[in-house]
């Protein structure tokens, strides 16, 4: 795969993940506003999320979409504003994407599965 095709695919992945994120953010905010009406505490959140596959799958999708969406944008910022070499910028941006994926999925595991 040449650079042009890879760049075009990255743009498309970023665009598709943006659509998923838009939906996830709306649902996340709506649920949060609804849930917070009766006061919010850590135990109350955990009582809703613990053992809930719905919450687990929803936030896992949210995290994966973030991990896919962020690296192309960071890559652009690093190349255009910081003038990093494209290969270096992409490597660092992808590392950041992995960080989001690992920490995000760990957080989902913590509120849904962890005892």
């Amino acid at each position: 795969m040449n650079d042009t095709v890879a760049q075009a695919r990255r743009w498309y992945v970023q665009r598709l993940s943006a659509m998923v994120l838009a939906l996830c953010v709306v649902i996340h905010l709506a649920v949060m506003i609804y849930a917070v009406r009766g006061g919010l505490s850590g135990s109350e959140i955990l009582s809703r999320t613990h053992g809930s596959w719905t919450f687990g799958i929803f936030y896992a999708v949210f995290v994966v979409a973030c991990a896919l969406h962020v690296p192309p944008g960071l890559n652009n910022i690093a190349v255009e504003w910081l003038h990093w070499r494209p290969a270096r910028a992409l490597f660092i941006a992808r590392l950041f994407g992995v960080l989001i994926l690992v920490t995000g999925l760990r957080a989902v595991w913590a509120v849904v599965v962890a005892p």
Partner: protein
Amino acid sequence: MNAPTSTTPPTPSTTASPTAPVDPAATLQVSVWRGDAVGQFSRYEVPRQASQTVLDVVTHIQRHLEPSLSYRFACRVGMCGSCAMTVNGIARWTCRTHVANVAGADGRLEIAPLANLPVIKDLAADMSGFFDKWASAKGVFRGTRTRHDDFAKVEPASPERAAANAGIECIGCAVCYASCDVVAWRPAFLGPAALNRAWTLVNDVRDTAQEERLRAVAGDAGCHSCHTQGSCTERCPKHIAPTAGIAGLKRLAGRAALRGTL
């Protein structure tokens, strides 16, 4: 190397009528870039007149005050696109820009060459890189018919023809190119004008170089680097929307990349 950057913030446009009577004693305080990539602004006082354009001001300076001033113009009526310059920080056609709309009450003008292009001398920018990018974007029509064949029938109301019509009036003045931040950040970026040209050809049903063109305009040097800021669309004197064409190219090239046909 980029054109000099204005150190003075752009003066807001006024609502004064270009043909309103002006005080015969009134003068414009005009700062004009002298030099190439290295140089400075020189100050001139120019008599203010009714219906005066920025090109009139530059011409007055060259004919009466600074004979060695270099600038470029041809038609003077907004057809050729050769007189584009940076006026008070914004790229414009100087022949179609009335002083009354840009100088403000204090009568100050700052005139510099177009940004994002090398400066040859004073107000004349080197356009060769700009037009080279049109060639890189495969901005040349390639068909199969000869003069011996019948005319191609293109339905005027078809979506493709409508999309091509929307961008076809570009005269290559480079106002959009000079207004584009992505061109400044990524020197290899093809720019709004070249991509707009490619978009008109992508929508030309007679053209036979579609795959080759899509490859040429995809990726970080092409349409996928556009951030849709819209400066090109806002500044285009022909009211073309290169941003819309670039969005179309992104969709087509992105899908082709996923399908493996790019």
